[in-house]
């Protein structure tokens, strides 16, 4: 037991450093994913479709969803810089590829959420003088958020787990730190189990936060 505790305290600083990097990648890519996905979702919702533009946006969202995340990461890190003639740091490449891939799913969640808002709500807003922008801001989006929060929470969970894949391009996040520590300590079982525990804690924290937000904005207090 003592041996394992010693091992844990030896590894903890690097694992925490990895966790911090994982959180940085997660938050940056979630910001990109949720803002891009929301815009794409709004543009592809039934009531706000703009000819041609909405079709293009739906096409882009489909591409983001259809290509495996790992392949998107390789394209952003290796292919894009080659085509465009610039270099991308692993952090930027990770955030861009994670954000884009997830935005495809967020767009679907938002589109679905907007389509659940009854037509009568849009029409009542219009009859009261709200223009499209104000209808979205004051009436439709606040109602939609309540419907889609569990699905967005799922997406955030999936995004957290996908951050492990960016270790393949050399990002020193939690999984890569774990792999490096296994090479150094030659103790895969306790180290990988600890890494798993760290992911579990982060996921529990995010779920707890999401549940709090959900309760806070619910119409009916339980």
């Amino acid at each position, binding site marked *: 037991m003592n041996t394992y505790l010693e091992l844990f305290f030896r590894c903890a600083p690097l694992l925490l450093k990895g966790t911090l990097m994982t959180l940085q990648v997660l938050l940056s890519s979630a910001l990109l994913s949720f803002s891009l996905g929301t815009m794409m979702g709004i543009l592809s919702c039934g009531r706000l479709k703009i000819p041609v533009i909405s079709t293009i946006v739906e096409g882009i969202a489909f591409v983001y969803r259809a290509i495996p995340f790992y392949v998107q990461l390789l394209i952003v890190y290796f292919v894009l810089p080659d085509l465009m003639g610039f270099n991308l740091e692993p952090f930027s490449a990770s955030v861009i590829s994670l954000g884009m891939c997830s935005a495809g799913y967020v767009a679907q969640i938002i589109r679905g959420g907007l389509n659940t808002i*009854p037509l*009568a*709500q849009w*029409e*009542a*807003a*219009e*009859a*009261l*003088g*709200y*223009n499209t922008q*104000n209808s979205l801001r*004051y*009436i439709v989006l*606040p*109602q939609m958020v*309540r419907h889609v929060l569990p699905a967005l929470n799922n997406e955030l969970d999936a995004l957290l787990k996908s951050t492990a894949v960016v270790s393949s391009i050399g990002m020193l996040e939690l999984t890569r730190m774990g792999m490096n520590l296994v090479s150094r300590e030659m103790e895969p079982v306790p180290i990988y189990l600890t890494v798993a525990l760290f992911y579990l804690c982060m996921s529990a924290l995010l779920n707890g936060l999401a549940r709090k937000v959900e309760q806070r*904005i619910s*119409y*009916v207090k339980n």
Partner: protein
Amino acid sequence: MGTSLRNISLEIPENKITLLLGKSGSGKTTLLRCIAHLEKNYTGEILYRDQPLSILLAKDRCRVLGFVPQSYALFPHMTLLDNCAQPLRLQGEPSAQAKALKMLESLDMGPLAHRKPHELSGGEQQRGAIARALVLDPAYLLFDEPTSALDPENTTLFIDLLRQFKKGMLIATQDMAFAAKLLDRAFFMENGAVIEQYESTEFLSLESRLGKFLDNTIRKK
């Protein structure tokens, strides 16, 4: 998709109650929605004081027409007060909150101002929706089947309420008992066209006309 309308030409007086009568699918709601500019795909013009309503922006149109939908469509995430105050805020009204509260108080809804729609009864929600439409002081109020979700007691309260307003009102309904108590003027619709027009003095004949119509419908079923 609503009923197709044909050859509609009618004038709706200010400060009077006008009814649109007819069975389901006769085009009453479609006509009401065209007037409220919720259906935009129509030919012809809807004029207010010789100006086409279609050229007005939503924020100006709501000063001419207040619309109370059949489902009331109060915004569920807002309190009743915010439901009423927000349209005023968007119009740049500095004392939106106070005006909205005054309107709610005038409809005996003051104590309910801070409740959300799911905490109100059907009749209270309807009065809330009316307050929300009235707060912008439109020239006309449009109602779509206003009594469809009301019990007889609330229907009586609603009729008393309507009589207080000095507004032009256009009400689409197939509730004859309600229509009989309110009528100033009525248009009877069938298959998307206005087939007859009545003034209040002619109501008895309208009642018998509708009575026959309803009897026939029931027998056919």
